[in-house]
């Protein structure tokens, strides 16, 4: 059977959307993905993109209608140095009803600094008073704390020497400075020695990047300024190395129900567009992108990072070690290691973690993403997952009472959490191993699990999908040939957003995926024949296991619950996975020192010495 799935015109879906005018890059044809060689031109284009964001956001403010002048519009206008009087007047009103906790703190910090020489005394007084009377929550996770403590640090710097009666938390400026500095140093130490906890998030990339740019730009303490700059480089290097034409690929600590299918549609794509210029920006520049844009002119992406994102000579494998979010219960380990593998070519990228319950609710453990000419509206990805939810998961990562949580979570922006058809989330009953562009996922699901099944995502944008008598499913996405092998019988279910779900309702189960570039073969039939000819042994009882010789000639042996083997050698995650390793990024666990290389360029970020060292190989 051969199924041709028609492409849906993205523009027909969004052209009628409001607020899109004046977002030229969002509506324009996709940009070129080749690197811009001239540094001056590259910088000009970077700054032009910044101005596009500012002008669009400022244009949303309707003259004479203060209701259309929110914090983001004010930030844009102050960055453009226009309408300071109107902005000031509106700030006085907005400060009467502060809300949104740390998501209020960083916009207000932004306008406070942008407006130092623009805002009226009344506006400054209103802001000052809000930080005395409004109590923003500190939050319960890494991105919250980064926003909270960065902004606390900067606002205490703005209002130094003030007493405890001047701050919402009853602390003095000096105490706030000390506490925020201590947390930021603690976080940087953790992130640069054992890895980030909320790693590689398609949205929360912004919640790390924006505060670090604030710190790099506005901190007076030269150490904090340097740390902000270095962390921003670190986060950007970590991001760009796992992008395919700007799209954040592979495993994410957190993504969402939209982005897990439409990989481009995320705040991370604003950063790819802003920094690399190689993909369209998401609508409204990802929302929070405006706050980066306000002072993006204070950051110059190092060329070595730019080139990692845009200029790759060959396929490569990139390894990373991250950590889980804090585990409060149901674990003897506070932050368990996460072992990531990503394989990237110009046509596709396969990325994964080792499986298991590494993050709550929004974990995405693996996918194959293929390159497309225009990612807007495209579901250019394929993956499988073991749907799971439970109070034990939530108790592990949250401190709240158990029983109400699963349902409550679905009201908190995670609507599919308890849905059998879910395509987002981790499972304790899934183990994944990847080598090159081959991935094997195994599941051994107990009766106590909510569902004994595997869900596979098959996109509306697959050009071809064939169910082969051999047991393989053969598909093509873009210029990528895909061989997908369900380990147990399956059936199909339609998906509301297009495409279909492979539902394999068996407890002993798994998936094999082998990707390849179409250009490697004379044609489709040759690809299929080669896959059919690859040595493969599958056993499901008593424990799922696979022996598979990959298209690249690797003999991969995996058994659920045991360490994988490649060509007879046992893979030792703890010993082999460094903080980063690959052709571009390298760092030892515990080192705090990241070496970023591309061609002749090299930058070393050393958090032990707080130095940035650039070198060019002759």
């Amino acid at each position, binding site marked *: 059977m051969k199924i041709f799935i028609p492409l849906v015109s993205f523009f027909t879906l969004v052209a009628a959307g409001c607020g899109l005018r004046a977002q030229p890059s969002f509506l324009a044809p996709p940009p070129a993905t080749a690197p811009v060689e001239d540094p001056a031109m590259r910088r000009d284009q970077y700054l032009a993109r910044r101005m596009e964001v500012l002008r669009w956001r400022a244009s949303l403010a309707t003259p004479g209608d203060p209701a259309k002048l929110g914090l983001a519009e004010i930030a844009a206008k102050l960055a453009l140095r226009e309408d300071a009087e109107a902005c000031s007047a509106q700030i006085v009103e907005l400060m009467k009803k502060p*809300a*949104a*906790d*740390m*998501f209020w703190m960083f916009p207000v910090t932004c306008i406070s600094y942008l407006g130092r020489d623009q805002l009226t005394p009344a506006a400054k007084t209103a802001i000052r008073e809000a930080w005395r009377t409004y*109590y923003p*929550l*500190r*939050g*319960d996770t890494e991105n*919250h*704390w980064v926003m909270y*403590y960065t902004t606390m640090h900067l606002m205490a710097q703005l209002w130094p020497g003030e007493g*405890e*009666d001047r701050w*919402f*938390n*009853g*602390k003095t400026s000096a105490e706030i400075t000390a*506490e*925020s500095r*201590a*947390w930021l140093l*603690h976080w940087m130490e953790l992130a640069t020695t054992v890895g980030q906890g909320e790693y590689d998030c398609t949205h929360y990339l912004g919640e790390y990047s924006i505060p670090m740019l604030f710190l790099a730009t506005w901190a007076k303490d030269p150490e904090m300024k340097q740390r902000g700059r270095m962390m921003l480089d670190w986060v950007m290097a970590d991001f760009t190395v796992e992008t395919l034409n700007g799209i954040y690929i592979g495993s994410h600590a957190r993504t969402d129900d939209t982005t897990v299918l439409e990989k481009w549609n995320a705040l991370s794509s604003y950063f790819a567009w802003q920094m690399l210029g190689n993909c369209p920006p998401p609508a409204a520049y990802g929302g929070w992108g405006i706050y980066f844009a306000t002072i993006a002119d204070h950051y110059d992406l190092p060329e070595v990072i730019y080139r990692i994102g845009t200029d790759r000579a060959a396929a490569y494998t990139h390894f990373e070690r991250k950590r889980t979010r*804090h585990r*409060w*219960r*149901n674990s*003897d380990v*506070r932050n368990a290691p996460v072992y990531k593998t990503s394989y990237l070519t110009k046509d596709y990228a396969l990325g994964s973690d080792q499986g298991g319950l590494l993050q709550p609710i929004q974990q995405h453990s693996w996918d194959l993403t293929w390159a497309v000419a225009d990612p807007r509206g495209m579901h250019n990805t394929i993956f499988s997952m073991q749907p799971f939810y439970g109070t034990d998961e939530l*108790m592990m990562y949250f*401190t709240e*009472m*158990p*029983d*109400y949580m699963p*349902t*409550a979570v679905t*009201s*908190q*922006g995670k609507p599919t959490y308890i849905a059998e058809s879910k395509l987002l989330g981790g499972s304790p009953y899934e183990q994944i191993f990847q080598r090159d562009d081959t991935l094997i996922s195994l599941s051994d699901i107990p009766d106590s699990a909510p569902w004994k099944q595997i869900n596979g995502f098959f996109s509306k944008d697959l050009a071809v999908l064939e169910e082969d008598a051999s047991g393989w499913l053969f598909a093509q996405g873009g210029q990528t040939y895909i061989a997908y092998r369900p380990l147990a019988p399956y059936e199909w279910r339609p998906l509301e957003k297009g495409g279909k779900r492979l539902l394999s309702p068996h407890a002993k189960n798994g998936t094999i995926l082998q990707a390849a570039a179409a250009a490697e073969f004379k044609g489709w039939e040759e690809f299929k024949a080669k896959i059919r000819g690859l040595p493969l042994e599958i056993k499901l009882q008593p424990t799922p296991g696979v022996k598979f010789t990959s298209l690249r000639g690797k003999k991969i042996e995996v058994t659920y619950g045991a360490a994988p083997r490649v060509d007879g050698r046992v893979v030792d995650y703890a010993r082999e996975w460094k903080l980063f390793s690959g052709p571009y990024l390298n760092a030892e666990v515990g080192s705090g020192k990241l070496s970023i290389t591309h061609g002749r360029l090299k930058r070393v970020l050393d958090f032990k010495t707080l130095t940035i060292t650039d070198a060019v190989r002759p």
Partner: protein
Amino acid sequence: MPAVAAAELKHDLYVCTNLSGQGSVMGRSGPVLSGLYRSSDRENFEHLGPHHIRTFSLTYDPSDPARLYIALLDGILRTPDRGQTFRIVTSWDMTEAKSISVDAQRPEHVYAGIPDGIAVSHDRGQTWTRMNAGIRRAYTESILVDRTKEGRVLAGTEKGIFLTEDGARTWRLVQATDKVTYSLRQSPHDPKIFFAVTSADGALWSTDRGVTWKRIAGISAERTLHNGEFDPRNAQRLAYCGWGAGVQVSEDGGKTWNDRTVGLPKREVWKVAIDPDLPDRLYAAPYLEPLYVSDDFGRTWRKLQWEKATVFDLVFVPRK
């Protein structure tokens, strides 16, 4: 039922509550103020301090009941003046405090249960030190100082009840549990008696100051129990509640239990409390429902306050 004459009451009722609904998360504004409320007449409630959706519990300094300690998402909040001014007294390294208890024999000593252990202050909360040596799974939901002996503290952790008799320098396991102990109470009538409720081990009873514990017969371990309370006016009366467990009361010192959920909108009851000033008065807080009150110890109920509340704690604080 007429409003209670405030002057007759010896305690104020403080409520830690989230009124922002099930969808409330960090970064979203709520239509009404959550956090700490106080009622001086048991009918009218005034909001105190910050709007806060994760205000978990409260206790007071027995030597100065105007000094309140509040366990919340941000750590520990202290007010020296019954909620007129506040200060977060913990730093970045302590988050999501769940419970606090003041040593009645040494009120400058304060103990807090936090997700990664036990925090102790020796200066009325001004500074804190983590002191949970010997507790492997240190998640601590409930903590209680024996009011009769300085430095003697029970902690309800993820895997059991721990006891220290040296001010948290050393801890020993006195009762293993499969999951979290959510509430610890000492009888106001007999300080040797302690009452605990758990997530997966039912309710526990101790008659030797918490050194040994027994499961209370007739209380199922199937449900997560949220809290248990002694009636300060009647030594034979107790109450507990839980998720799916409704409100259960005993009027014979815990030997038998009666379901008193009829009249409440659901059996998922987050908190129950017994009024120290008013005979037969019981409070129950079903999840995302109004706070309910009964004046016949749970036989009939009426709505008292709010529409959709998650009440994390109900605490009676002496006025003097």
